[in-house]
């Protein structure tokens, strides 16, 4: 059940990434919703799930991206998912600030691996990597905090609405 939920969440994030995220900041992909989903899965389910979800999400993302190398995104997201899952098991990261830090750090690590591999292999160049990375960190942190809050508040809201209907 959890695996299905993870897959559904990843699929939803990919769908939103390909349809909505590109309109968020001037047509650029400053927000990686798939990475946010992977971080959330890793924080809530652990390193293995985070790594597997990151692998799957990254590979799908790579496959859908034209001209890229399949595996680089998957590798970056697998490492991020694993490490976030490990940290999530070792520390309490349910509060807003730790999650914010975690999102920023995960985005930075993902960007470093992703862009670093492309540059190291001589496949692509990034004219202003630091600017792009900072923008993505901020975007992911903002979107992630909102998404996490929505996701965690959704069951309670549904339960309260059900209880209100029963009271009427």
């Amino acid at each position, binding site marked *: 059940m959890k695996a299905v939920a993870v897959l559904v969440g990843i699929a939803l994030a990919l769908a939103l990434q390909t349809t909505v995220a590109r309109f968020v900041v001037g047509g650029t992909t400053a927000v990686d919703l798939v990475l946010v989903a992977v971080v959330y899965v890793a924080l809530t389910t652990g390193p293995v799930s985070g*790594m597997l979800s990151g692998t799957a999400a990254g590979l799908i993302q790579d496959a859908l991206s034209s001209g890229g*190398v399949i*595996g680089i995104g998957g*590798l970056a997201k697998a490492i991020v998912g694993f490490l976030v899952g490990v940290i999530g098991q070792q520390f309490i990261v349910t509060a807003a600030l730790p999650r914010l830090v975690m999102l920023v750090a995960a985005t930075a690590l993902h960007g470093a691996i992703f862009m670093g591999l492309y540059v190291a*292999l001589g*496949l692509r160049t990034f004219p202003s990597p630091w600017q792009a990375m900072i923008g993505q960190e901020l975007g992911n942190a903002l979107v992630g905090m909102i998404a996490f809050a929505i996701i965690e508040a959704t069951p309670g809201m549904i339960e309260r609405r059900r209880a209100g209907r029963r009271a009427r």
Partner: protein
Amino acid sequence: MAVLDIRQRTGWLFFAVIVGHIILISAQVNTRRGVPMLEAIVFGGFAEVQRAATSVVTGVQDNWNNYFALQQIRHDNEQLTREVTEMRVALQQERALASQTRLLQQLLDLRTSLPLSTTAGNVTQSAVIGGGPSPAFRTITIDKGSHEGIRQDMAVIAPAGVVGRVIMPSARAAKVQLLIDSNAAAGAMVERTRAQGVAVGTGTDRLQMDYVPGSADVKAGDQVVTSGIDGIYPKGLVIGQIESVQGGTGDSRKIVIRPAVDFSSLEAVLVVLTPPSAVPPDTEVSRPGVPSGVQPTAEAPRTEPSTQPTPDAPAAPERDESGNVER
């Protein structure tokens, strides 16, 4: 259950995922030389495996070839060693034969060049009866005797020069007194200046030249030859070379001659059957070791050995009944 087991091995799973990604990436990325990275990595890794496998195989093969397969080699080695030993022996025999042939050739050359009748006295191991019985008497015994026409006082020569004279012939052997014997002497002259004297044995490996006129020009390095005045040795045979002239000038000079013949390694000699009196007076024997252009220019007087030396031609030393020198 198996899935749970895998999930519990987080580290291995993470490692497998990372490796899988690296393989996937490598399959799509080319190296700078245009070769797919996966192929390059696989080839490089497999090359190391091949290298290791080859090292193992080569090591086993070397061990087999160098240790286990050496039984035949050992047999071959023994056979070859045996063959080498046999060939060395044969080589020694061939060398000895060649040496003997050279020596005989030299003797033959000397014999044909001499205007004298000679016979070869072979002083080989089988023919030599022995050397001198006492160190005080420097003699040898040759395997030719009176049956071959050898008589007393016949000159014995070698390719290098004068050896001595026959002092005691028997039927099949003869005793030869070497020129270095302390009782031996020969009429001699310095080839360069024709100064005459007597070469006298000292009992050592050196000769001494006595009765040389005090005004004669004699110096170290001069060649000394027989003068022929003693009635034994034909004229012109090499005696040796003056090694030193001691005592300044005059009659007190001591002239030391180094013999031309190595008396310690005599193997074959020639006995001069023709007495010097039968040789024409103007004839001087040609000899090995003397340049053809170096021939005497003046004829020394032919006299019988006498006890009275003359200024130009000293007399031969006086001899006793056995022919030894009286000094």
